[in-house]
């Protein structure tokens, strides 16, 4: 196996040091909560409903990169591929809460679910109201009848974007919960990997792939996808991915969607653009309107080569929130 090279200092400190680097790139718009692996906006509007996102590290710029104006109010960041612990979640919750409660928004994984749930109990003990939306956009990870078994992948970005805009304008946690739940329910993704990622502390790839193999239904961690396939031409691959999403969330003529083509790490922008070309051809053939397109490295899995396609279906309410200008380290929209 090839040696994994990384520009790091101490493999045990990567989560901490990268968070520090990110905060320094924000130039004062967020601050670190010491000993809590968390960051919070410095310009938190008074009395707003809170939005906390979080999960394991190693997916940079997710989650910390989406803390900012009309986005999340803070993020709590675990170690590489490990959900943050309850004490840290609680710490971030306390820093964010302005008396209106805090929405927990994160990817649906056993580890995150348990840790955030424990934190929610601890918060309740402190009279901080919380509600939870778990993102489960990955259509490959379970059939529709077990949608609650699906995991959260790059579709996180769409849900955070809508939730962030909503959190800036609604006045109750219940409203934020309702809108965020809708955004989650209108989001679908599917991913493929061409090569594995690694964990800095082991310095080992988390799985192996043959020279012409791809992993279909790839997530954001070292855990493998749903099945193996052969590397086929881009247009064919994209077609099969779009088909899979549309089976799950049928779209009709004149439906409006936002498209996210997310780089899992080491794919080239050239490939993502070729993917987008096909996605747009498909939707133009079907009369589906693409409202906005995001292409880039938003939710990554270390040096994994591969990408995912996510769709957010819009209704008038979601469109309004989606179109709210946002400003964070990793997402700026006008």
């Amino acid at each position, binding site marked *: 196996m090839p040696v994994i090279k990384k520009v790091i200092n101490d493999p045990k400190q990567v989560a901490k040091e990268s968070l520090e680097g990110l905060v320094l790139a924000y130039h004062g718009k967020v601050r670190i909560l010491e000993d809590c692996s968390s960051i919070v906006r410095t310009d938190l509007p008074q009395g707003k409903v809170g939005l906390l996102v979080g999960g394991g590290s190693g997916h940079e710029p997710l989650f910390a990169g989406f803390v900012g104006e009309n986005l999340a109010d803070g993020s709590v960041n675990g*170690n590489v*591929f490990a*959900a943050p612990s309850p*004490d840290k979640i609680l710490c971030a919750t306390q820093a964010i809460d302005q008396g209106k409660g805090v929405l927990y928004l994160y990817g649906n994984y*056993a*580890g995150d679910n348990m840790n955030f*749930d424990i934190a929610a109990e601890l918060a309740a003990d402190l009279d901080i109201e919380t509600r939870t939306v778990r993102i489960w956009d990955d259509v490959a990870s379970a059939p529709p009848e077990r949608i609650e*078994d699906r995991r959260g992948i790059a579709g996180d970005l769409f849900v955070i974007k809508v939730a962030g805009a909503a959190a800036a304008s609604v006045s109750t946690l219940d409203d934020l919960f309702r809108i965020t739940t809708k955004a989650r329910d209108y989001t679908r993704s599917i991913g493929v990997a061409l090569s594995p990622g690694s964990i800095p502390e*082991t310095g080992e790839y988390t799985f192996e792939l043959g020279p012409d193999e791809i992993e279909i239904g790839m997530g954001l961690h*070292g855990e493998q996808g749903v099945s193996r396939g052969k590397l086929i031409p881009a247009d064919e691959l994209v077609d099969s991915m779009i088909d899979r999403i549309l089976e799950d969330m049928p779209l009709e003529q004149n439906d409006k969607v936002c498209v996210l083509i997310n780089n899992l790490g080491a794919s080239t922008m050239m490939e993502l653009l070729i993917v987008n070309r096909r996605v747009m051809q498909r939707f133009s053939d079907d009369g589906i309107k693409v409202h906005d397109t995001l292409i880039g490295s938003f939710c990554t899995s270390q040096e994994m080569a591969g990408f995912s396609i996510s769709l957010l279906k819009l209704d008038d309410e979601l469109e309004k929130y989606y179109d709210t200008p946002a400003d964070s380290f990793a997402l700026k929209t006008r």
Partner: protein
Amino acid sequence: MSVTELTLEQTQQMMLYVSQKMQESKDLLSHADQVIGDGDHGIGMARGFESVEEKLSHSSYLNCGELFKSVGMTLLSTIGGAAGAVFGSLFMGMGKGLSDAQVINETNLSVALQAGLELIQKRGGAKVGDKTMIDALSPAVDAASDGKDLSMGEFLDKISLAAEEGKEKTKDMVSKIGKSKTQGERSLGFPDPGAISVTLIFKFMHEYVRSIQ
């Protein structure tokens, strides 16, 4: 001379020993998680038990309940991920079960393990057969409750064996919970990493007890 209980002091020594040995098991556990999970189980367990070792080296406790709760809290806040919640809950539940006991023995350990199992299941909802650490822990809890009048060594040996058998059975299970569940059938043939950890924890407890007999 066969021991039938451990003092608070010995219990703390035992957990120190377990902590050291779990750190040494880092690569073994990560490799098991590479095959069917995301490859970090050993890293997390080692990080957690390093903190436990640190904590126990500098603390003293009023009773065994406090001791186990402290182990649980430390694991919960330093492992993170599924294992943090699960193994944190195991020891916190045990601590609750042990309450203000000054010693551990067959009777109160059996209660404690049951309490640990319940807390984990309350948190994570996994059942026997889902291919998780529950599949090693649950048989161990059963074994703990049915045996009578064993020495600590015999008792822990029995628990270890039950856990080990349960862990072996996870090879024939299709994962239903945790990072490995998306792999479905592809998880067949490999043991669950968390189940290996359970087996090791009991094994190291047993080793410690043997060493003081």
